[in-house]
């Protein structure tokens, strides 16, 4: 999304799409925000530490182990809940994309290609087509890499204004321009007569509320809904403008790149995350889907707001003096970024908190308030780029597969299982993980397998009305 504005003048079809960097960003930006939310976890981690300082050795081991076990158990419990909380938006996004593809024919018509994929796939020989698609994919990936590195460099040199401007312009474009086109196509499909004034009013309202929700404050549900909608719009644009083989190749290469960029020590995304952590600050909003804030909203609704907030702040004060203001901000207008578990044991933050005051506060805390604040702290964030690529895979499957619904369903199940596995790994490793590789691999394998192998089989069975 961030590059959109930069490339406006150059397109043949005026459709911008670059949000790859965002995607990768999203995979890493989460760390800093995650860190912010680690307080409760660190609090509990501090417990064993503080106790080791003050108690005889024999008790220490037991206490430490017990705390770690409780920790893990809570991790897994809340982990399962958050897996489900991520299933719903991913499913919604895919459902929107598939529904649109099936009904609005605009997105399956070939109207040319993006400038990023200059080689056509309508060639005479298969070899030529393969070569063209490889070149297309290579160009696209290099654009993404360049953009990501640019973003990391900008971030390192603290050019925050530039980044913010970039993000705002691209989300403006997405919210207004793309949704205008989408609305127009839907009206055309259903033959609905509509005047420009109504459309202008609708798009204006949609766009402005979207900008406010995403970049500033807004109800959590509304923000999540907007993020899902813009991911779906983006995925639809990709499905329309990427030719077949190129699309599959790009999906495959992007998951490899994601893996490399997030896990390798010199990867741009990892550097981004580490820089953000060093500076103790939040990364960009509007590019991550977050499932956490729901607790904040719930708590505010249940108790009188005035009572709750000060008490939360005061407990934060005791535990994380350095992070208190950031917590407030972050929880108020959190975006999220890629996939991270919010309980990362971060040594950099730990030492700040192990003052006698915090230790006393931690030990004095009644257990129920601990658990009630834990859910608030924990949550999973998934980058919007991940949403987009999942939806691209499922959308392409539904658009171009001969097996139609079977293939779409198989890809859908495969992606969800991949997401489950990734979240499981996240709970085990507790650090930023790329969300794309496992899901996309499963999705691709299932797509090609179902389309070529299962489809003829099921077809024959259905023809004779055999059931297995």
């Amino acid at each position: 999304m961030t590059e959109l504005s930069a490339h406006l003048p150059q397109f043949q079809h005026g459709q911008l799409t670059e949000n790859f960097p965002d995607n990768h960003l999203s995979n890493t930006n989460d760390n800093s925000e995650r860190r912010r939310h680690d307080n409760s976890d660190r609090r509990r981690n501090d417990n064993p530490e503080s106790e080791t300082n003050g108690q005889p050795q024999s008790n220490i081991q037991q206490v430490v182990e017990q705390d770690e076990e409780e920790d893990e158990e809570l991790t897994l419990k809340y982990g399962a809940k958050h897996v489900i909380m991520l299933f719903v938006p991913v499913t919604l996004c895919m459902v929107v994309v598939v529904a649109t593809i099936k009904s609005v024919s605009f997105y399956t018509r070939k109207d040319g290609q993006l400038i990023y994929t200059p080689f056509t796939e309508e060639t005479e020989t298969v070899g030529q087509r393969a070569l063209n698609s490889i070149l297309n994919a290579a160009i696209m990936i290099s654009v993404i890499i360049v953009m990501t590195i640019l973003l990391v460099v900008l971030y390192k040199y603290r050019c925050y204004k530039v980044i913010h401007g970039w993000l705002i312009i691209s989300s403006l474009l997405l919210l207004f321009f793309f949704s205008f086109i989408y609305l127009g196509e839907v009206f055309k499909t259903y033959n609905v007569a509509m005047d420009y004034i109504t459309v202008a009013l609708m798009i204006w309202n949609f766009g402005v509320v979207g900008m406010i929700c995403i970049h500033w404050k807004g109800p959590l549900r509304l923000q999540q809904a907007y993020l899902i909608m813009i991911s779906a719009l983006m995925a639809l644009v990709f499905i329309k403008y990427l030719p077949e083989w190129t699309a599959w190749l790009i999906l495959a290469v992007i998951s490899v790149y994601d893996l490399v960029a997030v896990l390798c020590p010199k990867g741009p995304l990892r550097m981004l995350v580490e820089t953000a952590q060093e500076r103790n600050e939040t990364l960009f909003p509007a590019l991550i889907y977050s499932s956490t804030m729901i607790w904040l909203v719930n708590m505010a609704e249940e108790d009188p707001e005035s009572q709750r907030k000060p008490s939360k702040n005061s407990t934060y004060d005791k535990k994380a003096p350095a992070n208190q203001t950031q917590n407030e901000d972050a929880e108020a207008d959190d975006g999220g970024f890629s996939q991270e578990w919010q309980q990362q044991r971060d040594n950099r933050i730990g030492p700040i908190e192990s003052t006698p005051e915090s230790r006393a506060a931690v030990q004095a805390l009644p257990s129920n308030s601990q658990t009630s604040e834990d859910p608030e702290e924990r949550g999973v964030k998934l980058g919007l780029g991940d949403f987009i690529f999942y939806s691209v895979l499922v959308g392409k499957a539904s658009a171009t597969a001969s097996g139609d619904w079977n293939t779409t369903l198989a890809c859908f199940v495969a992606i969800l299982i991949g997401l489950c596995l990734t979240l499981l790994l996240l709970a085990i490793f507790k650090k930023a993980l790329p969300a794309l590789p496992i899901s996309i691999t499963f999705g691709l394998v299932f797509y090609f397998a179902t389309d070529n192998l299962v489809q003829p089989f099921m077809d024959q069975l259905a023809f004779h009305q055999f059931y297995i």
Partner: protein
Amino acid sequence: AFFWLVSLLLASLIWFVSVHLSDREDAKLQHGLLIFGAAVSVLLQEVFRFAYFKLLKKADEGLATISEDGRSPISLRQMAYVSGLSFGIISGVFSVINILADSIGPGIVGIHGDSPYYFITSAFLTMALVLLHTFWGVIFFDACEKRRYWCLGLVVGSHLLTSGLTFLNPWYEASLVPIFLITLCTGLWAFFTAGGSFRNILKCLSCK
């Protein structure tokens, strides 16, 4: 659902390979191969159900050790039900969704001499299958727990029988009626396996 899909994938791989290796023109052979493929698929489904059972057992142990009171939050019965249900749902959906999609479009059922009841029998068969998978799941898991291998064999056998009965389509009397009978019997069996009894039913009804 994922496990069922994987089993379907493997089965169709086997069928595909066998079709390609054989004579395309011989219709009887193709028919036979299809039946063979279906039988293989049924067996693979049961194998994967067993594999899923093993996986869930492991997860169950893990959950039990870390939970507060030493028992896992989800009982094995619930897991059996969910697993059977998901197998059933994905199997039913895969069987019927293309038919549903076609049923929206323009066309006449059975114009080439096939039965005009295709859609409605498909609907009933799918429903029976989904229910059957759920019941089989419950019985299967229970049998594995208690190591009653004859129960297992009976489940696999009834699955094969059901699938075989569908080969008798479009002779619907011979296929639909027995399949529904099997569904009813399996349902009762699963109900008693899961611990139900006449008294439970009476208690449940009288509470209302």
